């Protein structure tokens, strides 16, 4: 009986009844010298060949910035001053992460599905094993999430996705000014009763452009040239400003 059910599932999977047609206000974010953050409008429609099922539909949108290994450190009082003592390495944490849903997280996505697709903020962070000397490694992961939620890098936007007539959905996600560049994986899930019935993935490209791009690349690839250039520019700027000021005073 169980085997039959599994088989049915496998057969049923490719025949998705509902598909996502997605639109993005922009699939590219340019970080320029005056970049102040950006709003991305994620919108789309659900394409289906069958009539709308009885059970209500939910939509989950997740945008994840490039992941990097991190170290979280904790301060403790040592000889009267607050100094970093314990450290826990996090194997991989996205630099930016936003989840927007049509309703409360526990209702729109079951725990099992969350575990499988790694959707909620806690699941998006991967940390394998803590050093033996730290007993409460969980506190470090929680601190990471807390700090990044406070500065807007991690966002939990429950109920922020608007769904019209079970067909049209849209949400706006604000990207903060201090973005890391890279490919931002954008995933959209359709769920019914907590189970994912369809998903769609795309990439938003976040890049420094122009002068920002050029300076950044130079500083990483030819640091010596960048250092010399910095000195030259700094000297020129300092000298130029004082010369300009002198002229201004003599003129006036």
């Amino acid at each position, binding site marked *: 009986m169980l085997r039959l059910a599994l088989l049915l599932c496998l057969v049923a999977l490719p025949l998705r009844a509902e598909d996502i047609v997605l639109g993005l206000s922009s699939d590219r974010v340019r970080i320029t*010298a005056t970049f102040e953050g950006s709003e991305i409008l994620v919108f789309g429609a659900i394409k289906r060949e069958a009539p709308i099922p009885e059970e209500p539909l939910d939509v989950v949108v997740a945008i994840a910035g490039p992941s990097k290994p991190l170290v979280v450190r904790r301060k403790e009082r040592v000889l009267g001053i607050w100094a970093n003592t314990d450290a826990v390495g996090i194997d991989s944490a996205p630099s930016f992460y936003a989840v927007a849903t049509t309703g409360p997280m526990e209702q729109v996505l079951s725990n099992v599905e969350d575990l499988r697709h790694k959707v909620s903020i806690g699941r998006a962070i991967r940390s394998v094993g803590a050093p033996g000397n730290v007993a409460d490694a969980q506190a470090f992961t929680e*601190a990471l999430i807390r700090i990044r939620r406070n500065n807007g890098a991690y966002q939990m936007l429950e109920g922020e996705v608007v769904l019209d007539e079970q067909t049209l959905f849209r949400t706006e996600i604000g990207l903060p000014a*201090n973005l890391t560049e890279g490919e931002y994986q954008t995933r959209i899930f359709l769920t019914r009763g907590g189970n994912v019935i369809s998903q769609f993935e795309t990439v938003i490209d976040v890049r420094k452009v122009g002068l920002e791009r050029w300076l950044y690349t130079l500083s990483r690839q030819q640091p010596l040239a960048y250092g010399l250039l910095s000195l030259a520019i700094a000297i020129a700027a300092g000298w130029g400003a004082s010369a300009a000021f002198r002229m201004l005073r003599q003129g006036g």
Partner: protein
Amino acid sequence: MQIYLPIAEVSVNAFLLLGLGGLVGVLSGMFGVGGGFLMTPLLFFIGVSPAVAVATGAAQIVASSFSGLLAHLRKKTVDLRMGTVLLIGGLAGAGAGVFVFNYLKSLGQVDLLVTLCYVVFLGVIGAMMLIESLRAIRRARKGGPISRRKKHNWVHGLPMKMRFRTSGLYISVIPPLLVGLAVGVLAAIMGVGGGFIMVPAMIYLLGMPTKVVVGTSLFQIIFVTAFTTLLHATTNFTVDIALAVMLLVGGVIGAQFGTQIGMRMKAEQLRVLLALMVLTVCSKLALDLLIEPSELYSITAAGGL
């Protein structure tokens, strides 16, 4: 107007940076100090990471000292020979300083090191300046005689003597090398020029004539901080040129006003003010170490370097 700093990867208000540069510029013009020791802590306060603040501070000092050195070279008040000896010590010190800086960065203790260095140095120097200038004010009121410094001290007994014609000295090269070394280490760790250590050391320890002291120290500072900038740029990638330029432009303009204000005040009063300001910055940094921070955890990229 927000400006995105390409290396620091933060977005800050351009006018805040210009203002900060201007404020430090006014103070450095008023008191005739480089201002690096105030600029770096102020950058911490606005959220620039210590690594970027120190490295960028070094670049900014090179630039702001440049026109000063040119003026001294024209007046021939630079002892190039002494400057070179100080510089050799300084380069070695800067190398060692950047090494220590990077090592502690990998341990996650660099913020603590930089802050501790600031607290200790600002505290000691601020206290010394305050006591000294208060004494000078009291002496000036009494009208008593000014004590003359000794011409000979232990420094003159060391081997490896060398003649420094411009300074009119014939002394061992060991003390200037050590002074240079100490200043180089400070430049690398604290992002300061180190004039506030070097100038007193040159006058009281080496016995150099006051008129060549400032020019010679500028000569050493420019090359040592330039070297530090390059070391930070190549090993840490933490020199933010956009930040440096913003601070510089503000700084140069501020310095012009500062000089005007400084000329209208008495030297002793200025010194008391400077001492109080140094002590204020010092106590703010010290409090940050002593008071329990609101967030005990901090995040850094793995691998550090």
